[in-house]
Each structure stands twice: as C-alpha cells, then as structure tokens.
C-alpha cells in the first residue's frame, strides 16, 4: 500500500516535471520562428504543442536508455526516482526564474544519478550508459548543430545570394513552418521519452514491470499530454533570450538553425541518445549566426547559457541527493515523499505569489 502511494506520487511528479519541461524547453523550439517573423507567437506555440504530442508517439529508444542504461534498475526504488525528479524540477524552475535556457534533460538525469548515489552509492550508476549515451552526446550534439547550421547557411547564401531579398525572405519564412514543425516533432519525441523512461524505471522498481520492459501505452500518452500542455503554457522569458539576445536572425538563418537542430535531435533519438533540445537549438542558432558574421553572436549571453549548461548536471544531482536525504529522515515509506511534495508545492506557491505581487515576470513580445 505504502509503495503504491509512493508510485502514484512518482508518476504525478514525473508528469509535473514533463509539464515544466514543456514550458521550459519548447520555448527554444519556437523562438527562432517568432524571432524571424515566420509565425505569430500564438500560432507557433499552438503548433509546437500539437507536434510535441504527436512526436512523443514516434519512438521509444530514448525511454529505453533512460529506464535501463543510466542507473541499475535492480537497486533503484520509487523513492530514489522521486528524489531525482524533485531535484530536476527544482533546477528547471530556478533556471526558468532567471531566464536561462539550461537543459531539462540533463537536470532529470543529474537528479536521478544524484539521488541514486546518495541512496545506494556509486555502484548504482551504469558508467557505460551514462558516459557513452549521455555525457559524450551531450558535448557533441551542440557542436554538431553548430557545424551543420554553419555549413548549411554558408552554402545557402551562395545559392540565393543574387536573388531579390523579398522573395528569399518570404520563401524561407514558409520554409520555417516546415523546419520549425520538424524541430517541435523532434523535441516531442526526445524530451517526452525521458519522462516515459523515468516512469518506466519507477514501475520496474515497484515491480509492476519486468526489467528491460518498454513503456506502457498509458505512460506514453500521459507523457505526451503533459509536455504538450507545458508547451502550450509558453515560456516567454526564455523565448526572449534565445530568439533575440543570442543573435538577430534573418529567415535563412532561422531555417538553417531549425533544420540543423531537427536533424541532430531526430538522428540522435533514433540511436536512443537522451539529448538536450535546448543545447542543440542554441548550438544551431549560434552556428547560423557565426557563419554569417562571428561578431553577430552575442557571445556574453551565449557564455551565460554555457555556464548554465555546465552547472546543470552537478546542481540537479546535488539537489536530488539532498531531497533523498530529507525523505529518508521520515523513513522508507510514503511519509517522506508526501512531506517533500507538500513542502515543494508550498515553496512553489510562495514563489509564484511573490512574483505576482511584483508584477508579471515576462511580457510577451
């Protein structure tokens, strides 16, 4: 009974994380289209929300990686997964509060790794999966998006260089409906699968599923719905950072950045790499800007984003470990997760109330 209650809390927390992932990360997906004027904000966010939902159903490779290749499922308990999720959600909200597009995916993996180490020790970590499927792709993916967008924009400018700017701008704006749609689809398939993977891990730990099982349909559908709703709720502060503060983009750059991002995320998803869509799209945006003119990229802002990236894994791991420690004060049953949930919700309500008294945090542009 107690473990069933913990499982229910874990699933609810995972879906809440998925929701925050939606409004935190998907802003990056639509920022490029909004920045170049290819789509109105409400249209871009509505379409991204729908495509996130659809994208969540097209693959389960990343979910399998998160459930089976990062931590040893045989030593994990639902409470460990719960503490990791709280760590990830807390870090997501901190970076959202300060308008930094950090990685929800790395926050999730960092949170689970941190709580697992605190609970069981370092032998709970599957180094091969963590290094080979998370850390190395995490470093390579934004560099790859930077390179792909840089090459693509260089060749594109040569092809369309002598044509009338009006025709070119209009054409690429239509193109961005395609590239932005693909990016939203890619985001849905990669990011929603991380939540599916974590819920599957909790179901395996609870004994409801066997080791190595795929996520059940209800897990896929609920994860898809949660990220889609989160996306629809927006994330204006981060849209502003990504869309206008890194570089000023034209529609050719927007198309190249989105195309590069979608290609990298979809190819990585196929091989089960749980990437950060935030890292990838920002890599693409910077590549598209730097290829045109290196000074066009506001490297100071880009540097702040890189700092947030570097901090994400250790910070969310530390919060996950602390949360696990707090839950253990109240024993191994459901009391610890229940108290942490109540404390977290109270803190969240107080934070939002404080922001509301000071006025809306972000104005839509």
């Amino acid at each position, binding site marked *: 009974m107690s473990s069933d209650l913990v499982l229910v809390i874990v699933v609810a927390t995972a879906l809440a994380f998925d929701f925050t992932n939606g409004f935190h990360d998907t802003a990056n997906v639509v920022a490029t289209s909004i920045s170049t004027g290819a789509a109105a904000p409400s249209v871009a966010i509505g379409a991204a929300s729908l495509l996130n939902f659809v994208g969540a159903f097209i693959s389960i490779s990343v979910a399998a990686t998160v459930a089976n290749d990062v931590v040893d499922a045989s030593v994990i308990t639902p409470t460990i997964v719960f503490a990791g999720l709280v760590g990830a959600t807390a870090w997501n909200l901190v970076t959202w509060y300060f308008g930094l597009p950090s990685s929800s995916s790395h926050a999730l993996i960092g949170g689970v790794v941190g709580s697992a180490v605190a609970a069981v020790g370092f032998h709970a970590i599957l180094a*091969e999966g963590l*290094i080979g499927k998370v850390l*190395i792709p995490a470093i390579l993916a934004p560099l790859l998006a930077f390179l792909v967008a840089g090459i*693509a924009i260089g*060749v594109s400018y040569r092809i369309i260089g002598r*044509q*009338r700017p009006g025709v070119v701008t209009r054409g690429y704006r239509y193109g961005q409906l395609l590239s932005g749609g693909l990016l939203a689809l890619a985001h849905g398939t990669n990011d929603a699968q991380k939540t599916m993977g974590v819920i599957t891990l909790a179901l395996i730990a609870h004994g409801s599923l066997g080791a190595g099982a795929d996520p059940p349909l209800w897990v896929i559908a609920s994860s898809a719905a949660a990220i889609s709703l989160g996306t629809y709720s927006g994330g204006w502060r981060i849209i502003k950072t990504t869309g206008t503060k890194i570089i000023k983009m034209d529609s050719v750059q927007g198309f190249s950045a989105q195309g*590069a991002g979608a*290609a*990298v995320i979809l190819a990585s998803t196929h091989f089960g790499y749980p990437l950060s869509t935030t890292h990838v799209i920002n890599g693409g945006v910077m590549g598209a800007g730097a290829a045109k003119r290196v000074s066009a990229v506001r490297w100071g802002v880009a540097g702040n984003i890189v700092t947030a990236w570097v901090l994400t894994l250790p910070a969310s791991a530390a919060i996950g470990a602390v949360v696990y420690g707090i839950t253990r004060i109240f024993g191994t049953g459901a009391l610890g997760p229940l108290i942490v949930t109540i404390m977290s919700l109270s803190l969240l309500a107080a934070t939002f109330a404080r922001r509301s008294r000071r006025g809306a945090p972000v104005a839509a542009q």
Partner: protein
Amino acid sequence: MTATIVDWSDLLQTIGASIVAGVGITIAFSVVIWGSARFADLRREERPGPAGVALTISGLALAVVTAGVVFGVIVMTTK
C-alpha cells in the same frame, strides 16, 4: 577506456545522418527558393524556356525536400 564505453559506430552514424539531413535539406530548400525567384524574374523578362527550366529545378528540389522529410519520419517510426 572511452573506446570500449562509447559505441562509436552509432555515434558516427548519428553525426553522418545529421550532416547529410541538416545540410542536404537546407541546400535543397535553397534551390527551391532560387528556382522560384529565377522563374519569376525570367517570366517577367518573357523568356519562357529558361523560366520553365528554373521552375522544373525548383520542383525537383521541392520533391527532394519532401522525400527527405518523409524518409526521416519513416526511419524514426520503424525502429
């Protein structure tokens, strides 16, 4: 140690596919734009032959873009 932990075959395939798809689709779409713009200019100059060629090139490039996107989604959904 890294060599045994990382599946370089999968990683290199990911890098290759990303470059081919990301650069390829963008170039093909640029040809669509180029062909459309040339078609409009040449038609205005009343040169139907070259305008037809530009339109054909643009149409073929659009077919490449469409085929690339459809192929990518099929590969994703069939693993």
